[in-house]
């Protein structure tokens, strides 16, 4: 470092001999010298040359060293320009005045060249250090500005995703500290087509951008599936799988997910890794807790993940409180945590459920004071209300495509020429399964459609007698006749399928009509309308369907398949 680059040194002294002595000392060290004869000139030279170090005589005409020092320091801004006063004064007051004016050091006359050289070196080092620091500070400032700007953009994207939900519903109140959003807290809410509400509060491991990243796949999976009618457990399974496969090990999401059914006044709560949520019973003024009984989302994959939820019946006016650990871990000035006891005492003090939400926030904020919060502060209140409070929201959903295919009907005729080449079952099953809740019934629905179709085709259109199949020879005969008659038939089979939602789930109605002669179903009919007849796969159909009803002369059958919401 000693063989440093030459510095430019400004020497301002009105005494020519003194100036020349100094110049020669400084030049010997290999530095460049610029000179001035008074304070005003010193300022001019400074502005023109921007030297690295300034040596100023205190007593000069026009403007003294103290005045020049002030002006030079001001012109330098946050750049460090060491100023060394040259003085024959040695009374304390004068020296103090020099330093107060912005001087960094002084050198007494007569000059000692070794001391001067040492001082120039020392100040040069300090100046280098200062320059490095300033560069780094500017870099940090730049990075920080950049990061804030990126966060603003990311937040906007995030808000757009979050706002497609139902967090504005009148029974939902929430608070998320601005810090919380980008430290990995996430809140999403949506109405299912059936009118029940799904809410998920999550807290990703760690802080900052890595924690916030996981919120994206979570939110898009949640909204994609909730609007299509998938259940709480389907959505949890999918989010868990997605997080498990995309997030690095060690990054996961503690979460509470709630489904509220307003028609039947119950909630389901799944809690994996968040603090106990509280259920406030309005009438009794009591609280119950729902403990975390699962691993957080994204920790284990596949069948190790458990989606079973806790079922609670609520009355209108009852409230559910969800929170991340930010409330429990909020610290006061002496490092103490807010804790669950203080939280419970907030509930103890209120007599009106309406004020709990604000009371909690006030209590936490008062406790933490102005101190920095450790974690992210998120609080959600969900109130049980009557269905008409939600109806308006649902209309809004109904008007968007988000609702998916739920109420529909179709008529589909398979004509003679197609029987041999075309199997209508996969096509029909595919349409039926566009209702998400029917997907898990795919196996049964296939069986039902297959039985109905083969009845209509073989016994109806092709007029084959199932009694034939009782012997091995007859069985062969049966299929020979089937192939033969498929060539010549002129009949057709018509499907009529309709789906509608109910408060408990939905009903799928399937009608199948063939052009055959039918059969005398009336002699098998029981009082409840179902048949005692065991042919034509009737036992199976009776098992799988709520209602199996023959119509007309037996060439027409109608069944109802009923599915229940949730699990």
């Amino acid at each position, binding site marked *: 470092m000693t063989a440093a680059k030459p510095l430019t040194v400004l020497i301002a002294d009105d005494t020519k001999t003194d100036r020349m002595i100094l110049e020669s000392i400084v030049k010997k060290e290999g530095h460049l010298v610029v000179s001035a004869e008074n304070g005003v000139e010193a300022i001019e030279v400074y502005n023109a040359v921007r030297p690295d170090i300034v040596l100023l005589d205190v007593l000069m005409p026009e403007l003294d060293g103290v005045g020049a020092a002030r002006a030079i320091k001001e012109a330098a801004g946050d750049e460090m320009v060491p100023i060394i006063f040259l003085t024959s004064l040695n009374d304390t007051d004068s020296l103090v005045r020099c330093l107060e004016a912005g001087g960094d050091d002084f050198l007494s006359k007569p000059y000692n060249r070794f001391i001067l050289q040492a001082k120039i070196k020392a100040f040069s080092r300090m100046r280098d250090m200062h320059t490095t620091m300033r560069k780094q500070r500017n870099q940090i400032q730049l990075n920080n500005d950049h990061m804030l700007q990126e966060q603003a953009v990311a937040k906007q994207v995030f808000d757009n995703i979050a706002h497609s939900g139902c967090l504005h519903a009148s029974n939902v109140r929430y608070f998320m500290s601005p810090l919380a959003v980008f430290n990995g807290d996430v809140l999403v809410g949506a109405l299912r087509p059936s009118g029940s509400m799904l809410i998920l509060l999550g807290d990703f491991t760690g*802080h900052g951008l890595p924690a916030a990243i996981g919120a994206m796949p979570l939110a898009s999976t949640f909204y994609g599936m909730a609007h299509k009618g998938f259940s709480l457990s389907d959505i949890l399974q999918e989010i868990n799988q997605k997080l498990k496969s995309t997030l690095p090990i060690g990054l996961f999401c*503690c979460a509470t997910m709630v489904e509220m059914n307003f028609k039947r006044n119950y909630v389901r709560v799944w809690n994996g890794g968040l603090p106990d949520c509280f259920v406030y019973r309005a009438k009794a003024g009591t609280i119950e807790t729902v403990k975390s009984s699962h691993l957080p989302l994204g920790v284990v994959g596949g069948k190790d993940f458990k989606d079973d939820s806790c079922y609670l019946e609520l009355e209108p006016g009852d409230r559910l409180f969800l929170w991340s650990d930010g409330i429990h871990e909020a610290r006061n000035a002496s490092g103490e945590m807010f804790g669950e006891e203080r939280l419970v005492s907030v509930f103890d003090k209120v007599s009106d459920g309406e004020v709990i939400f604000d009371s909690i926030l006030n209590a936490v904020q008062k406790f933490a004071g102005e101190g920095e919060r450790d974690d992210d502060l998120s609080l959600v209140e969900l109130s049980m209300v009557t269905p008409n409070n939600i109806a308006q929201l649902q209309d809004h959903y109904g008007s968007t495509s988000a609702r998916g295919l739920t109420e529909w009907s179709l008529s589909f005729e398979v004509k003679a020429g197609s029987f041999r080449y075309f199997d209508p079952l996969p096509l029909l099953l595919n349409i039926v399964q566009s209702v998400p809740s029917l997907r898990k019934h795919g196996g049964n629905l296939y069986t039902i459609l297959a039985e109905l179709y083969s009845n209509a085709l073989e016994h109806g259109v092709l007029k084959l007698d199932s009694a034939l199949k009782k012997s091995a020879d007859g069985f062969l005969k049966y299929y020979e006749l089937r192939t033969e008659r498929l060539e010549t038939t002129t009949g057709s089979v018509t499907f009529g399928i309709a789906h509608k939602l109910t408060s408990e789930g939905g009903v799928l109605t399937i009608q199948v009509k063939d052009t055959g002669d039918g059969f005398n179903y009336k002699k098998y009919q029981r009082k409840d309308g179902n048949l005692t007849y065991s042919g034509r796969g009737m036992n199976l159909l009776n098992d799988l369907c709520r209602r199996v009803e023959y119509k007309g002369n037996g060439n027409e059958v109608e069944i109802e398949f009923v599915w229940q919401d949730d699990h």
Partner: protein
Amino acid sequence: MGIRTSYSADTNFLTIAVEGRFDFSAHQEFRAAYEEADPQPAGFNVDMSETNYLDSSALGMLLLLRDHAGGDGANITIENCSADVKKILTISNFEQLFTIK
């Protein structure tokens, strides 16, 4: 905050003791404690007797250790937890993944 390690007499087990707050600031040191262990032990003990606080990034670090030690087949015991530490492990249901004593 500090991390100390010690082997059992037969070097089959490595004990990692975490002192003070177990949070993101311990990340490098905790990771080095098991990654740089030579020889690699058959099992790990995480000693929490001197740990007074655990945050969610510490839970993440425990999962990283579990992955390092063989995932589902990992042999990891978390021991000497204070009530507060135990509570955090319990809320996250980590007893399903680790032996907690």
